[in-house]
């Protein structure tokens, strides 16, 4: 047996190291379905506590929407539980193709291919469409799944400083001799809630004959006037060559992802993308659920409109309370605390007050930029947000950070 005491010792030491460094992640068991009000067992074994969830990616409140749940039930009855196959052998049902066509229409692209997750879409797409003659130029803050995809691809890779268009232009000039140049960015950046400057990026891509890739996981369904994503917000629909997105956030919250864009690129993925070729197809009830989500969102903008007004209310409430937030207009609203321990203490105290929000600190965000990331949902009612604001005011007062500048907070608590 190879798993000897020595081997066990090696792993124990690493895990203890993570605990000592405060980097050990612990799950909290939720006993209810995902919604604004949830019931949580934390720590494990503790009695259930009713809390308001302000840290889910459930932007449109679709995770437990009755019509979506009903559609998933119907999909289960009509198309079964699972397909026991990858797509190209015997894992493609009529509804898989229907969903691809609906996503294409919703995003305003040429074609779409489903993946088991957006992690898989990002991990598979670059290798499928690029070779060593090409270059990938990515924003320095893109999501981890994109980094993995880039690592798997033989094309040259370079980066530009976050959202720095001059730097991007320099990189496009530097790599102008390459066969294909791909500029790679998130649409909404998940840690800061800021958006990529897609209008400028399209302009640069046109000037230098480059292609543009956007991961719109934190945008699809609600950013832009009709919720199509960051490309709608920046007026560049039809000009993004590849959009990847997830069905695990605004678009239902279950699972699955896709690559949507130029039809030749999508076809290349169908022929060559490994997570598409070698991983099981999305389960029929999930497909049926996402179809319903897209029907609801295409029929009316009510939910994204409600999310927009909830977000505005929340941002203003935090600012009025004297807290420091990252500027922006997306439902990702980081409350800046700068110090890692302070972020953890505030998170714990908020939980005591019935508010579930998590502290983020180095290495997830840069040193000295610890924060509580709050995420607003169309599933929140004003009373949820008011209660959460009340809790932030109370806890903020306890730590004496209300109305204090960054400088003052750092002086008191350290970086």
């Amino acid at each position, binding site marked *: 047996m190879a798993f000897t005491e020595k081997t066990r010792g090696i792993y124990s030491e690493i895990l203890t190291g993570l605990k000592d460094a405060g980097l050990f992640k612990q799950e909290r068991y939720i006993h209810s379905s995902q919604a604004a009000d949830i019931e949580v067992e934390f720590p494990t074994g503790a009695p259930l506590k009713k809390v308001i969830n302000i840290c889910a990616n459930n932007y449109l409140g679709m995770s437990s929407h009755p019509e979506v749940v009903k559609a998933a039930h119907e999909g289960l009855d009509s198309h079964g539980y699972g397909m026991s196959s990858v797509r190209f052998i015997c894992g493609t049902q009529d509804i898989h193709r229907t969903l691809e066509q609906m996503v294409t229409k919703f995003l305003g692209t040429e074609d779409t291919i489903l993946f088991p997750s957006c992690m898989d879409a990002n991990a598979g797409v670059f290798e499928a469409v690029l070779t060593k003659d090409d270059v990938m130029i990515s924003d320095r803050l893109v999501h981890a799944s994109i980094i993995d995809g880039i690592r798997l691809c033989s094309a040259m*890779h370079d*980066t530009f*400083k976050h959202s720095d268009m001059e730097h991007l232009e320099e990189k496009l000039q530097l790599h102008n001799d390459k066969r294909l140049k791909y500029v790679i960015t998130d649409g909404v950046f998940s840690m800061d809630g800021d958006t990529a400057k897609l209008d400028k990026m399209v302009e640069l891509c046109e000037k230098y004959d480059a292609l543009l890739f956007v991961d719109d996981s934190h945008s699809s369904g609600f950013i832009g006037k009709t919720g199509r994503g960051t490309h709608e917000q920046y007026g560049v629909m039809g000009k993004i060559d590849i959009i990847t997105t997830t069905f695990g956030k605004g678009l239902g919250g279950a699972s699955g992802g896709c690559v949507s864009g130029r039809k030749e690129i999508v076809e290349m993925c169908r022929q060559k993308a490994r997570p598409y070729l070698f991983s099981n197809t999305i389960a029929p009830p999930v497909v049926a659920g996402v179809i319903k989500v897209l029907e609801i969102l295409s029929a009316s903008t009510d939910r994204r409109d409600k999310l927009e007004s909830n977000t505005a209310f929340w941002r203003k409430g935090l600012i009025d309370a004297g807290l420091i937030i990252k500027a922006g207009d997306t439902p990702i609203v980081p409350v800046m605390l700068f110090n890692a321990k302070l972020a953890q203490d505030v998170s714990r105290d908020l939980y005591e007050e019935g508010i579930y929000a998590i502290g983020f600190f180095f290495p997830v965000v840069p040193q000295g930029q610890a924060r509580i990331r709050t995420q607003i949902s169309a599933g929140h009612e004003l009373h949820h947000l008011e209660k959460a604001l009340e809790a932030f005011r109370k806890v903020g007062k306890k730590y004496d950070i209300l109305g204090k500048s960054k400088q003052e907070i750092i002086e008191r608590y350290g970086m």
Partner: protein
Amino acid sequence: MDNMHEIIKAYVIKEYVEDDTELTYDSPLISGGIVDSFSMVSLKRFLENKYNISIPDDKATPEAFDSVNKICKLVSEYVK
């Protein structure tokens, strides 16, 4: 120190240093986390363009790029 050291140091600062970290010719760039190994590419391309040389991929290792001094040594081997 000569011009090449200053040029390379200035490039590294402009490209990779986002705060006021002090840089010397011996500062560990890659092992010190200043330049991530992904971004080495543009450094290599910059050197090749600037000095009109071609550095073989197997010579452009993280070790060979780990300080301004080491980079200058590497570049010098290829400058005619």
